[in-house]
């Protein structure tokens, strides 16, 4: 907390009713902080209304790379209070917090008044009214920026950039920002961040959805077919123009049955292909993913997970599609499942998924989630990696060509339409080496073993997991939960407790030998995930022999796993 350690990160929530410009103010604050050399992120939280409902920009800005939200908020700044009480669970406040409201918008809801936070008032509405052409959210922007000590010049740059075509509004907005800074000075609270470290290296401001889309293109994807669904839509909206720029195409399909089968058709034609969806769409795609397994057509399916089951909680995060991803196909159907563990990693892991799908002629599922997908963050530019999709293809006129030949690796050359003398029919029916449908036990056993062999026998390298630190106790996690776990382990280390992080990127096929080596010497394993049923914990118990005490720490969405809860769990268990 502020009083006990140097402020290397500050958490701010800007809230208000829809149309109040909360997200605009948040985005501008984040961009200005990025230009000033800080890191940070902004999580979008909104009510169920399509437009006009309550909204909150949940932000954290810091001197070091920021992967996740903190346990609590330093500042809650409400442009108005319409239904803002609905965010109470997502906005923990304490005695070190400050609640800023507008006196013209009535009293703050009881939950905030009763909190131990300090209360302050800024006349955003009246101030904006006195500056024709300005809006209360620009006063809020200035107030927030002032409270955290963000140089005004950086904020001005961002405002100028976004309003450069509207001279009148620009001038008014800058004045409103100034008024916000003055109001912040009057409040007299110190939430100033420590100065940024070294001059900004190459950094990006991206969302996980954009990052995953770009990673796919870097991996070689040139075809996407998809059906819109929250929270995957922004990935599609990123890909539509970006694919066109690089000579690819995005097709809007009539449903997910169509999108999955379209990408299979395109990939059968030789073009690396992807689709993105959320749980309901993935459920519809399962038959097609099984077809890609059996016919050995490479495809990548990104599942931006949200609260389930059924339509669930569309705009909130949850890691609850893991079981479906690793088990949800009929028949014995080996597939690749990977999960990025930071927003920046969405680039690399999606790129890797394309590489694996193409190399192993298999479907690869990428488990992102709403938190990654819709959060914008300042990240160090991800390192270039050499994962490029490249498929083993058949040469023209290969004598006695057999599409599903039983090779040692299990990968067999794939003939691409247009190649003479090796035409074949790809089939979802069980088949022999030529592809002729066969119901014979012998062919079935051999093709099953071939399809399993190519995935299990592949060397996935160190990319399979991120392993950090050492200790008697380890935390085993995946995906976005890694962000809180990383921070919890760092805090534990500061109080002298060493713990190891194992964040599994390759969820399927399971890597028992690698995990065993990673947990060498560990006696306690805490499994952390964001779902109700402990899907990761159960998967680990089914696929791995873990020679240690294992505990499960889990909670369903929409609340994120907080670093403090994991930290406490680690501390208590290590003392036990």
């Amino acid at each position, binding site marked *: 907390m502020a009083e006990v350690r140097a402020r290397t990160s500050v958490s701010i929530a800007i809230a208000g009713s829809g149309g109040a410009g909360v997200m605009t103010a948040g985005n501008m604050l984040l961009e200005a902080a990025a230009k000033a050399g800080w890191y940070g992120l902004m999580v979008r939280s909104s009510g169920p209304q399509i437009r006009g409902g309550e909204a909150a920009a949940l932000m954290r800005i810091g001197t070091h790379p920021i992967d996740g939200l903190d346990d609590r908020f330093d500042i809650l700044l409400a442009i108005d209070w319409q239904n803002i009480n609905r965010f109470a669970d997502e906005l923990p406040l304490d005695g070190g917090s400050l609640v800023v409201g507008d006196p013209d918008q009535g009293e703050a809801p009881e939950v905030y008044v009763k909190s131990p936070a300090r209360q302050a008032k800024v006349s955003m509405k009246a101030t904006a009214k006195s500056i024709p052409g300005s809006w209360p959210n620009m006063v809020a922007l200035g107030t927030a920026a002032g409270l955290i000590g963000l140089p005004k010049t950086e904020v001005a740059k961002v405002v100028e950039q976004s309003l450069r075509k509207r001279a009148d509004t620009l001038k008014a907005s800058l004045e409103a920002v100034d008024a916000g800074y003055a109001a912040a000075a009057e409040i007299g609270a110190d939430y100033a961040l420590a100065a940024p470290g070294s001059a900004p290296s190459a950094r990006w401001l991206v969302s996980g959805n954009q990052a995953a889309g*770009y990673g796919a293109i870097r991996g070689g994807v040139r075809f996407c077919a998809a059906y819109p669904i929250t929270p995957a839509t922004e990935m599609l909206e990123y890909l539509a123009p970006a694919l066109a720029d690089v000579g690819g195409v995005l*097709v809007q399909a009539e449903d997910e049955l169509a999108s999955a089968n379209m990408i299979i058709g*395109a990939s059968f034609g030789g073009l690396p292909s992807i689709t993105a969806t959320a749980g309901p769409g993935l459920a519809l795609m399962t038959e097609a993913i099984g077809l890609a397994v059996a016919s050995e057509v490479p495809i990548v399916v990104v599942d931006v997970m949200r609260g389930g089951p059924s339509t669930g909680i569309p705009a909130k995060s949850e890691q609850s599609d893991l079981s479906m991803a690793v088990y949800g196909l009929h028949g014995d159907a080996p597939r690749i499942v990977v999960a990025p563990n930071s927003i920046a990693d969405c680039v690399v892991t999606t790129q890797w998924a394309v590489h694996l799908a193409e190399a192993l002629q298999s479907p690869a599922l990428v488990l992102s989630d709403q938190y990654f997908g819709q959060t914008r963050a300042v990240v160090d*530019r991800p390192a270039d990696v050499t994962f490029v999709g490249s498929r083993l293809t058949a040469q023209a006129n290969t004598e006695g060509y057999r599409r599903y030949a039983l090779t040692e690796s299990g990968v067999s050359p794939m003939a691409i339409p247009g190649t003479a003398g090796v035409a074949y029919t790809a089939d979802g029916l069980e088949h022999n080496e030529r592809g002729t449908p066969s119901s014979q036990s012998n062919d079935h056993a051999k093709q099953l073993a071939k399809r399993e062999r190519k995935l299990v026998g592949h060397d996935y390298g160190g990319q399979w997991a991120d392993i950090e630190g050492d200790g008697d106790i380890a935390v085993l996690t995946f995906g976005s939960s890694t962000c809180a776990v990383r921070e919890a382990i760092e805090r534990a280390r500061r109080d002298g407790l060493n713990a190891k992080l194992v964040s599994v990127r390759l969820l399927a096929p399971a890597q028992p030998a690698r995990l065993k080596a990673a947990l060498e010497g560990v006696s306690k394993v805490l499994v952390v995930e964001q779902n109700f049923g402990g899907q990761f914990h159960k998967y680990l118990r089914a696929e791995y022999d873990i020679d240690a005490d294992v505990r499960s720490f889990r909670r369903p969405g929409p609340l994120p796993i907080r670093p403090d809860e994991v930290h406490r769990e680690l501390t208590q268990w290590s003392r036990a």
Partner: protein
Amino acid sequence: MSTAPAQAVTWTPQDYKSDYKPIWCPGCGDYSVLSSVTKAFAALQLKPEDTVVVSGIGCSSRIPAYTSCYGFHGVHGRSLVAGTGLKIARPELTVVVAGGDGDGYSIGGNHFLHACRRNVDITYIVMDNHVYGMTKGQPSPTTEPDWVSKLSPGGTGVRTFHPLVIALAAGANFVARAFAGDPNGTAEMIAEAIRTPGFSFIEILSPCVTFRPEQREWKKVVHPASVQWTDDPARAARRVMTDDGFNVGVLYKGIRPPYQPPVGKARKRVADLEKEFAI
């Protein structure tokens, strides 16, 4: 469409047949459809390696592997979308999608509508036998309401689906009805459908001699349409809604340009895309 040099006859219909023996019952209409397909390919001198036959599941959907072209035998009802993805990704290929009435009008019905309106340059052949052959005799969307089966003891009581009218309403660019018992006429129609840009749809009456033996009599009732095709969908629809269902011929030809987004023409390097992320 990729063809051999003009005049030269490189491929005979036989060259488009694979060495697989079809699983079809003796007398099944689908044998004739296969021979019409290979005749049409020969008439157009399509390069086998540049031609792909895509299907779903059903007796009729077995057709890809019986040709010597590339084939994709996918899952039930999804042939049109697999074919659509393939054609958009590889516009230079000739894509022919084939299957049954259950595959295309029931489980794949939604894709049928959207394929018609999307108008990608593919040809769709439905071997309509008014029954689910592969699953041994259940009613399909084109089965008469009083047809009795184990699954529909008193008949379905549900009116039939009219594929031609629906194709017209949904925007198909070429609509025709053919009869399996006339392999040469059907071959000509398939060739014309492939030649016509956009989404071409041919409904082929193809008897299931096992579960609808009465369809053997179709050969006695089919007759060529008495009038030429039209380019007016409303006229075509009126005509086909009032005919006896056995009128054979091209019904409609439109001039709607096919849907084909450009592929393969990059205007930026991949690395340039990340400029928009830079701070």
